[in-house]
């Protein structure tokens, strides 16, 4: 349980800021696509070395980075936009993954891969998650300004600096790394949840980017705690419980936050003279 809590904190710190940038770049669904793209790598790792953490992690990262790089290259150098190029490559990757899994002809512990096992995190997985979070935070601190500019005015960034590809590709790599770390705790399908749901909730409340980031991390960690507790007491799987808690936070924000459904009516103040 303590390990699970530490894992959730690490995930909230690393994956959620990445999720917020995904959201602001209008690439929320990209996380979903990327999580599928990771499958063939993890499957190859499993084929070669069995259910080993290292092999599946390395495989997943390699497959994810290849897909992300290919999609990024196509988006930057052809007339296809990022969503189209990503959809093409992730579908190819997913197809390859399913083919590879079926080659083995035996049912691996699919539930483990799909839904993760945050309560069963061992020391190695925890170290991996913490390592990826540390790397992510350092990289974000370094890339913050180029990344913000790449998000809101990419043509200006291309004009003044050569950092545009660094920010773009660096960000894609961070997405892949955090999906892999999320996939150990929450599973491939649920990993995106902890990225996007807290980010979407925070977007509804805050107007400044820094406040948004802090709030998103707080919501993600809060959902982690609530999810773990309910999973422990009600004996339900932890990954979905955590993501569902984040989903409830999102629904509440949707109803109450200034940017939500009723925000314009709830926060109505008399207008100023000028």
């Amino acid at each position, binding site marked *: 349980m303590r390990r699970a809590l530490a894992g959730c904190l690490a995930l909230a710190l690393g994956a959620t800021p990445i999720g917020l940038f995904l959201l*602001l770049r209008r690439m929320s669904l990209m996380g979903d696509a990327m999580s599928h793209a990771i499958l063939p790598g993890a499957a190859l790792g499993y084929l070669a070395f069995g259910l080993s953490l290292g092999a599946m992690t390395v495989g997943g990262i390699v497959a994810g980075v290849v897909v992300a790089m290919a999609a990024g290259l196509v988006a930057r150098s052809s007339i296809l936009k990022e969503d189209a190029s990503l959809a093409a490559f992730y579908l190819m990757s997913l197809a390859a993954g399913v083919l590879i899994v079926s080659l083995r002809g035996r049912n691996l512990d699919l539930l483990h891969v799909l839904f993760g096992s945050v309560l069963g995190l061992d020391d190695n997985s925890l170290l991996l998650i913490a390592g990826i979070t540390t790397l992510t935070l350092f990289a974000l601190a*370094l*890339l913050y*300004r*180029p990344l*913000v*500019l790449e*998000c*809101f*005015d*990419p*043509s*200006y960034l291309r*004009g*003044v*600096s050569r*950092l545009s590809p660094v920010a773009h590709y660096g960000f894609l790599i961070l997405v892949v790394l955090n999906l892999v770390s999320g996939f150990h705790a929450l599973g491939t399908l649920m990993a995106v949840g902890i990225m996007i749901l807290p980010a979407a909730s925070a977007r509804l409340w*805050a*107007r*400044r*980017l820094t406040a*948004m980031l802090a709030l998103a991390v707080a919501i993600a960690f809060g959902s982690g705690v609530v999810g773990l507790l309910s999973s422990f007491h009600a004996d339900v799987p932890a990954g979905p419980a955590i993501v569902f808690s984040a989903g409830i936070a999102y629904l509440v924000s949707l109803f109450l936050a200034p940017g939500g459904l009723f925000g314009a009516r709830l926060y109505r103040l008399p207008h100023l003279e000028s």
Partner: protein
Amino acid sequence: MKQAETTLAIQFRNLTLGYDRHPAVHHLHGAIPRGALVAVAGPNGAGKSTLLKALIGENRPLQGEFRLAVAHERIAYLPQQSEIDTSFPVSVFDMVAMGLWRRVGGFGGLSRSQRDEVKATIEQVGLTGLEHRPIGTLSGGQLQRARFARLILQDCELLLLDEPFNAIDSRTTDDLIALILDWHAQGRTILAVLHDLERIRRYFPDCLLLAREVIAYGPTPEVLTAERLARARAVTETFDEDAPVCHRHPEQEAV
């Protein structure tokens, strides 16, 4: 008439630009001296934006070449259709401060004097009091003022402005033209695509009239004559799918 190389900012030699082999700008010859304030005029589809994009390296010449005496990082370009995502949570101050990129870089912090410089520039374009507003709450004119403030901080030698006054009211346009005239007085080279002939006549000493090829280039009063404007308008804008390969001799077209 050959000018010394050092006094020229841009030289065109038989420059032909276009899309899918069809030229948008044909056999452009000529030179733009340093410190010139040139209006680029012509009907829609004349190749004005294409020319500016070529100068910043966004599309390759089909034929010919141009020479820039200005380093790439000393060129500022204001695109016609801004790619700015105004829904992104960034304040006016932060957006304008990005003009200091070349001095601050991607990672350095802003010094106190640089913060003051940004504030002074925001004041110069008349946006004082709006520093902390998200850019999404600005009006079209205010956003254009913020983009000009960023241009001021970029402090470039060559400025390429693509229809900077599109959908901008006349008061804002006058304020922004005053900024352009300031830049001109400081000796910067400026190419601005404009449609407002009256403003071109009033403020721009030189004019390049384009209609897929150069109709005229020189002092504005000589370029913007009724006869030449009519010729520019007459140039068809449709692409002829089956146009034959162009065999015009490059030397014939010298302006």
